[in-house]
């Protein structure tokens, strides 16, 4: 029996973490596994960036520049073994996308392939071959070591040694020549820049709908739902879930990255429903993703987006422990608002490649609590803390990068940062100023221990109470307390920064590169490799406005004009019900000051 160290703040959340560990004694080392689902093409973009970032961080860890990670990669990755006994380390991931969206990526991935066996054909009669034009591999991926079988010198077919991120094997990104940043123009699909090998059970293609072209698109919520009603896809998903879940000893839950703007909102809904049915008691955290700005010239697409988003949000909320919309646009509504701005980033909001990179960085930060190596906050717990009294939808915000100036300590920077709304809103809920926060989970990562507390020589008058704190954690907690008194906050402070090596796009403005801390100590002006990030999940009253606004816009909509949306399996009554639920969800977030105080 080994009591776990409680490094978190002394709130209920921190104190409650790790009861399992206390009882299971020796087995406390058990990793609390999370299974990731990526549904949709934009989810694929975000996911690809996220896995790349994690992979790069794994590579750095092996370079031993940092202490053994504060984050436990085993939470999201699994160790496997090919038929040839080669160890693999791949994301515990199921992703769904449409026919034609993979480009040069093979459905089964390269890790477990055997070229010789694959060529065997079970037919002796006439055979015609219909070959699609071979998709060129993105030039940027050319250096990615192919993991396919090669003929080794002793004449046996073997799979080349595969970087597994843990052992002493060379790592993909740790190769001597750094890959160049791919050009924006060369990125059409997410597989164009994915540098992580996937398990053959990861990619599940929906053959029924096309990724490109005019016909056979997955456009409406109802279509998405019906995909997972078909036994063919349902069994496929169940089998894959079974494969990953069965091997988990302490599964803590599922994170679903799901496109909200198209039919995938329906796929996500069905998937979440299945998870809730089959794995009750596990956390289900859903990240509803919306890509960049909409084109007003396509009214139908815009209306569909609105409907899909509303249906997706409401239903996903019903089946998940926590739902967080993620988008860089200013609002969920029909009228486009300018995309959000980051003081130190230049990005093109029309490029999914850029938007997804920013959202991935935010995810990499706000998901920290349930991925910690020591005293993690389980998904169920995190959701519990943020979602009391029905507030299952939360907003995300992040300061990317966190502007830590060299020579200045964390208290200095936080004092300069000032207001509570220091982070850029990432949930398309408009300007958070003037809104109330009910509960929040905050993560600040990438701050060197030397800067955690004030470096002022004794005797100097303290510029703020923050400077009196003795640990970085205290500084952060105190800061949150100052900004938002009466709010239940949980905070985590990590040394590990977010890795932003290519294929992460170069978004950083020159002011950042020149002024701010480049943590790995590389000289100023050189490419930024890792950044500190300040991120938060927050149950905020801004949701009252945006969800209410969504309901209002839907009420105004003449749905008979969009009969084709209803044809796809949604009834008029469902729409009424949806509006009702959307309104009551919005009601949950009404600023209760007038009533309770």
């Amino acid at each position, binding site marked *: 029996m080994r009591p776990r160290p409680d490094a978190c703040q002394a709130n209920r959340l921190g104190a*409650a973490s790790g009861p399992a560990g206390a009882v299971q004694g020796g087995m406390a080392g058990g990793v609390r596994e999370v299974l990731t689902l990526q549904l949709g093409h934009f989810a694929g973009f975000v996911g690809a960036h996220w896995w790349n970032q994690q992979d790069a961080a794994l590579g750095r860890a092996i370079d031993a520049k940092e202490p053994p990670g504060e984050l436990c990669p085993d939470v999201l990755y699994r160790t496997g073994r090919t038929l040839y006994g080669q160890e693999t380390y791949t994301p515990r991931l199921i992703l769904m996308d449409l026919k034609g969206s993979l480009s040069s990526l093979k459905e089964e991935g390269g890790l477990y392939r055997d070229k010789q066996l694959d060529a*065997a*054909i*079970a037919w002796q009669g006439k055979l*015609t071959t219909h070959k699609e034009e071979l998709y060129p591999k993105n030039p940027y991926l050319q250096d990615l070591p192919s993991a396919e079988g090669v003929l080794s010198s002793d004449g046996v077919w073997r799979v080349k040694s595969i970087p597994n991120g843990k052992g002493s094997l060379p790592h993909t990104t740790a190769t001597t020549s750094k890959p160049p940043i791919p050009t924006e123009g060369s990125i059409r699909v997410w597989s164009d820049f994915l540098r992580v090998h996937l398990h053959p059970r990861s990619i599940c293609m929906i053959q029924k709908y096309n990724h490109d072209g005019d*016909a056979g698109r997955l456009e409406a919520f109802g279509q998405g739902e019906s995909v997972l009603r078909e036994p063919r896809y349902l069994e496929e998903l169940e089998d894959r879930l079974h494969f990953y879940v069965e091997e988990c000893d302490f599964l803590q839950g599922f994170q679903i990255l799901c496109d909200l703007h198209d039919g995938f909102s329906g796929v996500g809904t069905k998937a979440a429903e299945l998870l809730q049915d089959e794995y009750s*008691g596990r956390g289900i955290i859903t990240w509803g993703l919306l890509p960049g700005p909409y084109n007003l010239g396509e009214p139908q697409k815009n209306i569909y987006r609105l409907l899909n988003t509303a249906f997706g949000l409401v239903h996903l909320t019903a089946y998940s422990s926590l739902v967080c919309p993620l988008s860089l646009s200013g609002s969920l509504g029909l009228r486009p608002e300018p995309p959000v701005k980051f003081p130190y980033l230049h990005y093109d909001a029309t490029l999914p490649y850029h938007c997804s990179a920013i959202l991935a960085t935010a995810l990499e930060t706000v998901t920290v609590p349930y991925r910690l190596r020591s005293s993690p906050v389980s998904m169920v717990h995190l959701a519990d803390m943020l979602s009391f009294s029905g507030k299952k939808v939360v907003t995300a915000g992040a300061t990317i990068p966190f502007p830590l100036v060299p020579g200045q300590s964390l208290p200095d920077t936080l004092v300069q940062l000032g207001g509570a709304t220091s982070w850029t809103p990432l949930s398309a809920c408009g300007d958070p100023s003037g809104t109330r926060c009910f509960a929040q989970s905050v993560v600040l990562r990438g701050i060197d221990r030397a800067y955690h507390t004030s470096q002022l020589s004794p005797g100097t008058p303290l510029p703020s109470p923050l400077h009196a704190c003795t640990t970085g954690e205290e500084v952060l907690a105190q800061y949150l307390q100052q900004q938002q008194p009466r709010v239940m906050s949980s905070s985590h402070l990590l040394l590990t920064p977010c890795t932003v090596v290519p294929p992460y796009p170069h978004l950083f403005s020159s002011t950042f590169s020149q002024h701010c801390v480049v943590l790995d100590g590389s000289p100023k002006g050189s490419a930024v490799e890792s950044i500190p990030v300040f991120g938060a999940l927050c149950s905020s009253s801004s949701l009252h406005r945006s969800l209410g606004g969504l309901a209002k816009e839907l009420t105004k909509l003449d749905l008979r004009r969009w009969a084709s949306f209803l044809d796809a399996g949604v009834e008029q009554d469902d729409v009424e019900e949806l509006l009702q639920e959307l309104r009551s969800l919005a009601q949950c977030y009404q600023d209760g000051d007038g009533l309770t105080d």
Partner: protein
Amino acid sequence: MAAIKAVNAKAEVARAQAALAINICAARGLQNVLRTNLGPKGTMKMLVSGAGDIKLTKDGNVLLHEMQIQHPTASLIAKVATAQDDVTGDGTTSNVLLIGELLKQADLYISEGLHPRIIAEGFEAAKIKALEVLEKVKVKKEMNRKILLDVARTSLQTKVHAELANVLTEAVVDSVLAIRRPGYPIDLFMVEIVEMKHKSETNTKLIRGLVLDHGARHPHMKKRVEDAFILTCNVSLEYEKTEVNSGFFYKTAEEKEELVKAERKFIDDRVQKIIDLKEKVCAEFGKEFVVINQKGIDPFSLDMLAKHGIVALRRAKRRNMERLSLACGGIAVNSLEDLTVDCLGHAGLVYEYTLGEEKFTFIEGCVNPLSVTLLVKGPNKHTLTQIKDALRDGLHAIKNAIEDGCVVPGAGAVEVAIAEALLVYKHNVKGRARLGIQAFADALLIIPKVLAQNSGCDPQETLVKVQAVHLESKQLVGIDLNKGEPMVAADAGVWDNYCVKKQLLHSCTVIATNILLVDEIMRAGMSSLRG
């Protein structure tokens, strides 16, 4: 000028002859794609995607699903054909061929000035007559294993090579016969298909029991047990609950500890109940004990079970739970209260097989299993998929045969017979509608013609020979595809499903008629939402 042009200048309109030409063109295009598939001598198609993924098929249904069909008419035909497959499990290619041919034959008369409506009338009359003939030629007999083998072989030989077809035929027939229960409809769901990427395709076999694609998760559990009790349950043996809302229940660390212990004990008690039962029955009968749980079992519980010599599998698939109790007997329990020996199933042999990172658990030696497993083997993914598709069709063919209680001779024999009968019937019909009947009869002959063509014979020559023998012998004569000569289909053991043919005649006539009667095609701001 069409009225639609007045309101939408961008609208595209095609009328009368032009509209028909567009539709017939689409139907024939589709026909040309699929015609080489038909029959055991058809051409296998290898589809290679841009990324290099391979798909190997000659199943019309699979091909239609793979193709990105943009033409609305073609897409309509494809939907009808695949719908046929959903219902009966076969006949997609024939469907497409027949629709295309009906339209082609109709076009000959329409181009000479005959109104499509009259052709449609003829088609309708011909269909009714054709169904009568089908009724007459169907062979009603007891569906014993021999005839089912013939039915399955006929179906499977069109999808996979002969050697493999023979292996699959036996497996498929025996699996359906095993799960068949008098008084119940056949539930193909009770035949589990498990794939194993291993060895060659001819190692595919029937397992009279179940194969689960996971194994016991404890190093000390036995990899092989004989003569074992099987307990199937749906009970969580996992410590999980305290996390939910736990924050509200305790104030101090001691209280928390207490709560945690209580919760753990709760799970331990459940595990103990299983152990108690095991101790009791195994002492009595001297057998081994296997637990298969739909919910999770955490390492702690696994440890307890392993110590008592129990083999435990966790997270069995939901759909396997029903199969388990049908295969081994016993009942799946949802609670561990009142466990008795009656809840237990039995298996003669349970063993684990490891393949790379994947494990398989074989549960065999079941007494009279009502659920069985087809274990598909093959060296690569595309072979596995190909076999799975073939098995599905084979299973359907047998199910259809048993449910119909009759079969019809294959190898083009039925089509030849119906065409012959229609030509006689034509003379009883007054007016121009008889032209429609003529067209229908000619169209049906596409099936024997393409069969002959695909086997490398001259289609006309073969057809004439077959028709001659048919007239002479009054027997149902089809084509021997190996020789290109006429043969009596029934003697050669080539049987098709009655319901497939019936469905085929119905749906082809309806669709061909509908397409014929289209006299205007408009495309005006249509949504791309076609599902």
